[in-house]
């Protein structure tokens, strides 16, 4: 605990990136991009789980999901399950995924993001009997297209701050 909060620790740096991602998730997008909002929190979580799996894991993912639930006024736990799942996949496959090309990682991001959205939509369908439409998964597509940018920015940031 002491180490985590010391000045040298990357705790604040990682938290900072998460807060930025939360803000980006909250920003209102134009009407035509309504379904295509990229899930920044999921991307940032995915990156940190790949890069520093000993610091950011399932617990962090779940917490970020709970914060998202609060920000979206949704049921507590609705986003948290999906985010915990994203973290689980990233942490348990990080050795392999690190060696992938960026476009291969994109495909993985797409799959993981789709499952993440699936959890949320499923809970939403159970609670308000919304009809599930394929258009809800547009967000997974934009997330995977944006992954190279997020990856490079966070990679640069991590080496600047020297988080390991």
């Amino acid at each position, binding site marked *: 605990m002491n180490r985590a909060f010391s000045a040298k620790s990357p705790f604040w740096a990682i938290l900072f990136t998460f807060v930025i991602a939360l803000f980006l998730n909250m920003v209102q997008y134009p009407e035509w991009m309504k379904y295509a909002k990229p899930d920044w929190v999921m991307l940032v979580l995915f990156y940190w789980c790949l890069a520093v799996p*000993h610091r950011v894991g*399932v617990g962090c993912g779940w917490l970020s999901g709970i914060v998202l639930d609060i920000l*979206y*006024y949704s049921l507590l736990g609705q986003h948290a399950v999906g985010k915990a799942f994203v973290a689980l996949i990233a*942490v348990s496959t990080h050795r392999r995924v690190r060696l992938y090309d960026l476009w291969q990682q994109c495909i993985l991001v797409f799959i993981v993001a789709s499952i993440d959205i699936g959890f949320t939509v499923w809970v939403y369908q159970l609670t308000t009997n*919304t009809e599930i*439409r394929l258009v809800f998964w547009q967000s997974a597509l934009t997330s995977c297209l944006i992954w190279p940018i997020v990856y490079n920015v966070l990679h640069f940031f991590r080496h600047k701050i020297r988080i390991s």
Partner: protein
Amino acid sequence: MNYNSRLQLLRFFLFLALSMGAMITDHRSEWLKPIHTITTVVNIFFESVIGIPKNTFSLLNRYYPDDRLHQRFVELQQKQAILEVRLQRYEALEKENQRLSKLLSVSKRFANEVLLTEVISFDLEPFSHRIVINRGIEAGVYLGQPAIVPEGVLGQVSRVGYRRSVVTLITDPGHGLSVQIQRNGLRTIIQGSGKSDQVIVPFLENLSDIQTGDLLVTTGMGGRFPVGYKVAEVSDIIKDANQAFLIITARTMAQTGSVKEVLLLRNNDSSNNDLLTNPKPLHSGTSGESGESGESR
């Protein structure tokens, strides 16, 4: 070795169970309501930071107003004068109406207090039909309070927090509302369609007297919405001989995309106060009940 994958899997299932528990409690009971009231502080922080660009812009506008603004002001002043005159007539009518309904011993269904609130955000998530408004428990907002805009009914309050509340729109698939056709008084219920500005009328038989362009207004049944507010206009009727019911879609009068201010109605009548704290249908057995008391989370 914190990232041992078996440990992570174990943790995942732990958190899965925890979230499932939290979701079920949240959906089925009132136990997590105090938490929601507190967590809106986080929302206020995030929303105020996000609102900085917009707020500075409106601040600049206030100190450097342009001609158009002045013109608009004059226009609105004229409109206000006209409306005030009309309102006087309306007040007289309402008094008369109240007197008459007292004679008929009909329970009072007039909202006599209105709370003006601003919309903080809509499209929280693309598939949710809810908006957030800037008043909450401190202004006396309660669960199930009807929300309207000048064009018609918008929805009802489904979550109350500190300085924030969530309004579930009538287009939400989980929302039902008892309505009647203004032309002939035929009662039915409408249900959200999940598409913006669109509701469906699920339970009207093939021979029912309904036409495109019919106006649907609230019936006041269920005790939540006062009677006579415009809800939607029938836009499409499909008659299929193989189906028991007509397939009817209606366009809501309230255009959710452009809503900036929402009015929350409140009934000061003491006879209805127990209903406010304990939102349950007044009478059971009428056709509209099941719809309006239908949960809207």
